[in-house]
């Protein structure tokens, strides 16, 4: 944007509009190849789910009487966490009026919606009899956390959808007569623009609505993730029954969600040559946010382990011993190394604090945080509660196909949405630029006056 200021404002705006529309109009062969590849993975996932439905329900998974939750539950927690990060990045940057938010809010909002739409399917995928999900509507049990989990997720989904749609209104108005758009896109943008002409009254109404939804998103996302953590912590199972689980889940969600936003922003920046708008500075700022959250998550992990380990109740000692030194130690220490230490180091060291280094850190965080969710779900279940041998769990090919398909589905939804929606919030970016220009124009005379008076004083 700083570079854009060097140009003629009209030219800069045209360039911005063209850049924001690149994924819409310049999909290219690579886009379709990627879309096809992802479609195959998602199709394999759908076929695996069909197999699960037709053949014997959850018997085709690695789940068993003892380990009754596995990858499905971990994916639910992970994907809704990814969503939370996107929504919160957008909401908080808007509320704090961070000037660098402009090019990334749309990507954050779309990634939030895509991960939420896919993640919310997993409670249904996890049902042996998925048609029974209708009972949540036809015969709700108001005492059940599952019912409130559904209410919270649906409410959060609605707010995320509105937060994405509202800022599209002025963008659609600005772009609906762009000559590069096809007839269908123009018609769509004309409908989405709702007759936006950019009057003061319209701006006020839109700004108020976006602010209120952004404010709502923050507690809603906290509620969603806390209720999700209650699925674990409201049981008496060692390893789950922990008072720290609510905030632990919330911090973990934002941490991994910011990593998803970084990765999506860098992918679009590279694929559609958006370096001029999604600047290194923007990526670095997101990296700093991720480091802060990583430190907070590390602190919460340390606090949880220390609190449980120091008291040393038999069950918890057995669990922590298995986690840190025995059965799950390679996975646990991999999480510590690649989910916390290395990503934080990559961003902390100036030499590796490049877009490439930050992208690598983000990939590590996403994978390691998924692993962490598995470590939260599985080890406590393998420990027998009423005697017997420790349980085992290995995800089956069906589960892995479904989870991979879901991940591909998230990327496909993002690609699909950006075939219709500008990848950057062009109106918001122009607004930020105007505000900055006003600030500069206000500061310049004041500085000139100060310089004059200093010179007069020196002369005097």
């Amino acid at each position, binding site marked *: 944007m700083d570079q854009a200021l060097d140009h003629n404002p009209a030219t800069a705006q045209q360039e911005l509009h063209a850049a924001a529309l690149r994924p819409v109009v310049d999909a290219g062969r690579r886009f379709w190849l990627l879309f096809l590849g992802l479609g195959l993975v998602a199709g394999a996932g759908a076929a695996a789910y069909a197999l699960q439905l037709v053949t014997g329900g959850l018997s085709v998974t690695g789940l068993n009487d003892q380990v009754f939750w596995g990858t499905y539950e971990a994916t639910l927690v992970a994907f809704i966490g990814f969503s939370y990060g996107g929504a919160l990045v957008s909401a908080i940057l808007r509320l704090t009026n961070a000037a660098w938010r402009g090019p990334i809010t749309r990507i954050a909002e779309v990634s939030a919606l895509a991960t939420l739409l896919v993640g919310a399917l997993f409670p249904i995928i996890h049902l042996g009899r998925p048609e029974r999900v209708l009972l949540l509507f036809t015969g709700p049990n*108001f*005492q059940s956390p599952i019912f*409130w989990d559904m*209410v*919270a997720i649906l*409410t959060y989904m*609605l*707010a995320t959808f*509105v937060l994405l*749609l*509202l800022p599209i*209104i002025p963008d659609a108005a600005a772009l609906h007569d762009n000559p590069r758009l096809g007839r269908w896109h123009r018609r769509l943008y004309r409908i989405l623009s*709702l*007759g*936006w*002409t950019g*009057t003061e*009254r*319209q701006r*006020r*109404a*839109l700004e*108020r*609505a976006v602010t*209120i*939804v952004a404010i*709502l998103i923050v507690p*809603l996302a906290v509620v969603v993730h806390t209720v999700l953590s209650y699925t674990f912590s409201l049981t008496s199972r060692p390893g789950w029954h922990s008072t720290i689980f609510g905030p632990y889940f919330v911090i973990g969600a934002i941490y991994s969600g910011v990593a998803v936003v970084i990765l999506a922003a860098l992918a679009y920046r590279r694929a559609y040559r958006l370096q001029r708008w999604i600047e290194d500075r923007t990526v670095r700022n997101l990296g700093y946010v991720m480091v802060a959250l990583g430190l907070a998550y590390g602190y919460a992990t340390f606090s949880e382990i220390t609190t449980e380990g120091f008291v040393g109740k038999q069950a918890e000692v057995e669990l922590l011993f298995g986690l840190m030194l025995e059965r799950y130690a390679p996975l646990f220490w991999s999480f510590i190394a690649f989910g916390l230490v290395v990503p934080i180091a990559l961003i902390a060291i100036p030499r590796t604090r490049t877009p490439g280094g930050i992208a690598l850190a983000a990939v590590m965080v996403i994978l390691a945080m998924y692993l962490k969710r598995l470590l939260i779900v599985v080890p406590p279940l393998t420990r027998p509660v009423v005697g017997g041998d420790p349980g085992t769990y290995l995800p089956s090919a069906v589960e892995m196909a479904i989870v991979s398909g879901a991940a591909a589905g998230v990327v496909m939804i993002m690609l699909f949405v950006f075939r219709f929606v500008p990848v950057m919030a062009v109106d918001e970016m122009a607004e930020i630029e105007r505000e900055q220009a006003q600030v500069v124009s206000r500061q310049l005379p004041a500085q000139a006056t100060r310089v004059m008076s200093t010179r007069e004083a020196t002369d005097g």
Partner: protein
Amino acid sequence: MVSPPRVRGLISIAGAALVVLVCVSPVGATHRGQGVVDAVSVQFSYRPAAVADANDQLVARLTMEDGSPIAAVEVTFWREVYFVGQRRIRIGSALTDVSGTAGVPYKGPAATERFVAEFAGNEAFLPAIAIASFDVPAHPGSPVGNPAAGPQTTATIAVFATFMPPLLALTAFSVWLLIFGLSAGTVLAIRRGRQTTTVAKGE
């Protein structure tokens, strides 16, 4: 005539047989031995204090089936409360005396409360429990609405548990209404904003 060594041998054999018999017979397996344990009955009562400042007493008397008292065993006393479900709060425990009686002092808010006297059982006796409701009389200076679970608190929590789901539903509904209303209001405001501009241009 039997010779003394032979007598000693016979006595030894008889003694050994007796020991074996005692060990394997029901006589040997007394109620303190392995395998057979006695059932216990509990008489549970509430004794209000005789003088104003003294504590009331929760008293349990443990007897065997034949009515003989069980001494020197521990009885634990609980109060049943409703706190996010039916729970117990420990009042205290005491050993039974020679008459099989154990008691703990109690002073609570005036109300009808449910109490539990529980004997956990041991190698000689089966576990036993008695649950009863007693009217706790008012005492000068007795706690009112004990934060742990006095009757007022219990009632409050019961009300809370009853009304919480509808309240949560109302909150969720309000949020939905707010989001829908806000969206509709914004759409209307944007369209009206445009109309105003058009009129202004026309003028």
